[in-house]
């Protein structure tokens, strides 16, 4: 399966945030979407998630590069993890999970609610507390857990590790890695180290366009310099 973006354009007034974005994302890989602050990463995700209208272009799924058949993206195909997790505050974690499983009648859960909590390392004494009293990290884990259960074809992660402590960030990274098979994961961040550590591919969002970075030297000391140089180019572009 592939996620194809074709000539996507998004402007705010006269300011073009996304200019003719053209890219193909492949299944089973984690894409690190790197860009500077204000480069349009969240706008890009919001466009894909249907939260804001696009000016032109299209995006869809297809089986493979030879396939002519376009698969329209439905809301249930997308899992979106926002950087500031929001959860329904009047429910407890357990109540929310129960509700979530019930409204997704297409999901056949392979675990009990407590097993899901265990999988995400959510402490037992948090499970029956109101979500409004959860820490930032636990709220983030809840959001991730729901996306795992819903099992969408396309997972958009908008800086999910920002402001998490080291332990929770590591736990989250492990979960993201373990969930990459069978879906396309796009992980936005402005932290180069996180992208290099977690992602299979690095894509730069700069000057309103997506550009792949040669991944053959991923991990080399020169690699970082190359990306920084590429990002700096936008100032001169």
């Amino acid at each position, binding site marked *: 399966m592939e996620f194809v973006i074709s000539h996507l354009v998004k402007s705010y*007034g006269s300011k073009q945030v996304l200019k003719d974005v053209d890219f193909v994302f492949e299944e089973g890989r984690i894409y690190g979407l790197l860009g500077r602050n204000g480069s349009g990463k969240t706008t890009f995700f919001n466009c894909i998630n249907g939260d804001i209208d696009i000016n032109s272009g299209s995006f869809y799924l297809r089986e493979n590069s030879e396939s002519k058949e376009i698969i329209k993206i439905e*809301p249930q195909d997308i899992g*979106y993890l926002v950087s500031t997790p929001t959860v329904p505050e009047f429910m407890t974690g357990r109540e929310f999970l129960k509700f979530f499983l019930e409204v997704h009648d297409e999901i056949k859960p392979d675990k009990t609610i407590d097993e899901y909590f265990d999988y995400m390392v959510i402490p037992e004494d948090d499970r029956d507390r109101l979500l409004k009293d959860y820490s930032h990290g636990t709220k983030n884990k809840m959001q991730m857990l729901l996306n795992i259960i819903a099992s969408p074809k396309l997972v958009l992660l908008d800086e999910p590790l920002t402001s998490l402590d080291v332990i929770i960030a590591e736990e989250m990274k492990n979960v993201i890695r373990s969930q990459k098979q069978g879906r396309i994961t796009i992980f936005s961040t402005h932290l180069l180290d996180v992208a290099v550590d977690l992602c299979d591919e690095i894509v730069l969002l700069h000057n309103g366009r997506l550009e792949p970075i040669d991944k053959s030297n991923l991990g080399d000391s020169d690699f970082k310099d190359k990306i920084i140089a590429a990002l700096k180019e936008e100032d001169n572009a």
Partner: protein
Amino acid sequence: MRNGFFNTLTKVNHLRSIIGYNGLVYALKKLPLIGKHLPDKLYALTALKIIYWIFHIIKEVSMLFIGKIFGLGMIYLAALLLNKAYIGYGMTEGISGPNLFASFALFMFIIYALFGLMLNTRLFKCTTEKEYLVFMLRMNPRTLNNTLFIFDLAKLVIGYFIAGIVAIIAGAPFWLWLGIPVLAVCIKLFGAGILAAFYRSKSKRNKLLKGSTWGLIVRLLLVFMLLPVFMVLVINGYYVPLEYMLIISAILMLLGVWGFFELAKFDANLHRRALRDNIVRKEIENYREPVNAKQFKRLKANGTVKGNKKGFEYLNALFVRRHRTMLVLKAVIFTIVILLIIGLILFGFIYRYGRTFGAENTWAMLFNNFINFFTGRGYADALQPVDDNAATLFFRECASKQMLLMLIPLTIADISFKATQAMYINCDNSLMTFSFFKQREKIIKLFDIRLKQLIRINIWPALACGLFAVLILFNTGGQDYPFQYLLTFMVPVLISVVNSMTWLALYYLFQPFTTTVNVKGGAYKAARIIISFISGFICWIPLNTAILAGVLTVYTMVYVPVMRLLVKKYAPQTWKLKS
């Protein structure tokens, strides 16, 4: 020094015009429909900036006229009228006309100026331009504050001199024309001096440099107390001798000189601290502002949902349970109040009846009228027949032809708007980030559940209002036509159904809220205004209840499915997060 003054003034006015102009363009760009068509280039259009600058000057001059010339002009006018009246009635023994005029004018002016002194404490107020100039551009805060203060004083003097010309023409002594602006400056300096001394004392005690609201109220009350004194004097044909007024003026002038020295001692660091503390205070108030949002956060994980509810039914039941006080309390209180009023009226009537005609007759009357009520007839009793007075006729007219007035109490009792705010803040705001929540079928499923829930809550006040109207009919002659009781009862119920649907559908179609419970959508605001206007207009239309009930039934039967259809069609695009 003069160069420094004009330099500072130019910088402030330049910055003011930039802030004002950019703020105006920003506001225009936020307007619904036209806003998005306005280009960003507007921010850089020199021609428009010049036009704005001209308007800015016109505004400054107008403020000068309104605030200064008009204020003092009114005082001179009042003094002139009093003077003429006193001369007319021969109450000017021992004082010349111009001096009497001056006495009145001085008395009123001092009260006016003291009021101004209490309210006008702008010297240390940190406006946007002061914030930029002092904290970002590192301008000397003392120079800035003093420049603006001198500019204010200059405007004051010019304004008062202009107003004084009218007084001279009206016969005021020449020294008054010169004296009042000087006195005004001294009172201003006195006010600034008090503030400076107060802030310096606070600074020594390491406290936040801010004015005291209670202090202001006490001072205002003291000044207010001078007004009755003046009125008593005038009503009794007295006046304060000019010599006394001149002594008071001289004291105020001396206090002004004291104020000048106090202000001179107030150094740049204190000016900076006063401005900074003003910002701190503003920020504290901003934090306090979302009190409105806070009320939605008082949640406790008490109890859970009983029964076998699943999915959205479960979500809604939990939501109502955790927001019970917020959602149900208002409707319950309203219903209880209406029922209490009905109960008290009935109790009063029965009690008086029992005292007059005895218990046996009372029971007989109650039994007969109980039967009458349920057989559609009106109140009837041989011992105490219906009194056909104007009040009876008025209430009957309301219950039989003005049932649209029910819109007023039902709008007050309606909880739909607040319920939609709570839905957004505590539930939808977060669930909207999940894709399943935006699926058409799921949106409409939850919409239906919520609509039923809102109707279930809003219907109680409607039932109570319906009962009230039916009892009025019963007590004023019964039914004019078959089923009049039933139709009268139906009207408020149908109105409450329409209300519930309207607010819920508007929420789904416009989603106007932000996480701080502000209403952001222009279209939603417009819809609210239009609905309020229409409701305010139609509630006064007289309409026979039978016709009204028929129209409302048909309207509800069409309106509810049409709105539901609109929600089903458009909500997947419109029901979104707003930043």
